[in-house]
């Protein structure tokens, strides 16, 4: 299932609507990377609020997205991780190290606006 990607100024916002298969996640990754290049976006927000679980594959893909988009000169922030999701992730041992996270879309936009300064959520 394809994830809708919206362009908001210099940012791209990908809103995950429901559970994604591994193939869907890879497709999302490629679509984002391609569009960042096409639109010369400065930032990407991936909203995972509706993702049912964030498991090892999803985590790895989110890290890949961050890395690949960084190579295109843009920042990525993951928003919408729920308490239950965060709890499972840390129990599984997945920390999303090196990936910026914010509470929700509003915070994600604020984060991108600030650049990487201020309350940077990347793990030192």
């Amino acid at each position, binding site marked *: 299932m394809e994830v809708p990607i919206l362009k908001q100024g210099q940012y791209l916002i990908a809103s995950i609507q429901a559970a994604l298969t591994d193939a869907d996640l890879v497709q999302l990754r490629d679509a984002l990377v391609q569009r960042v290049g096409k639109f010369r976006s400065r930032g990407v927000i991936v909203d995972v609020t509706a993702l*049912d*679980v964030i*498991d090892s594959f999803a985590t790895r893909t989110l890290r890949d997205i961050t890395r690949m988009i960084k190579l295109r000169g843009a920042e990525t922030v993951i928003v919408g991780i729920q308490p239950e999701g965060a709890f499972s992730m840390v*129990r599984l041992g997945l920390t999303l190290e090196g990936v910026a996270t914010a509470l929700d879309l509003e915070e994600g936009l604020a984060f991108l606006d600030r650049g990487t300064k201020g309350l940077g959520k990347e793990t030192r």
Partner: protein
Amino acid sequence: MADEASVPINSDADIVAARQKGRALAAQMGFGSTDLTLIATAISELARNIVLYARRGEIVLKPAEDGQRRGMIVIARDEGPGILDIPQAMQSGYSTSGNLGLGLPGVRRLMDEFEIVSEVGKGTIVTAKKWKR
């Protein structure tokens, strides 16, 4: 009372099906929201292992009972290549780069009980249980 379910695992779409089924059954059993996600995540990891290493298998979900405790059993079964060194598999966790491995220690941390039986050339059975608090 909650049902049993068996989800065949052949493709990555089945990974989602299995974990959604697991979540639904666990919800029926009265697990809290955090536990629902822990169970669904564990199922996702186990089902993916089946797809990646054995191509095919099944996830069986059923209620568990132990005296006064009620809970859920997740069984991940396949006839794949099997695991050669189980202790080693239980040591290695996720690495930030390269192969993530089976992530079995992680699954064990998500559930309350965890057991694995595997034979090279025959297959693997992982049994994990979660009890209602």
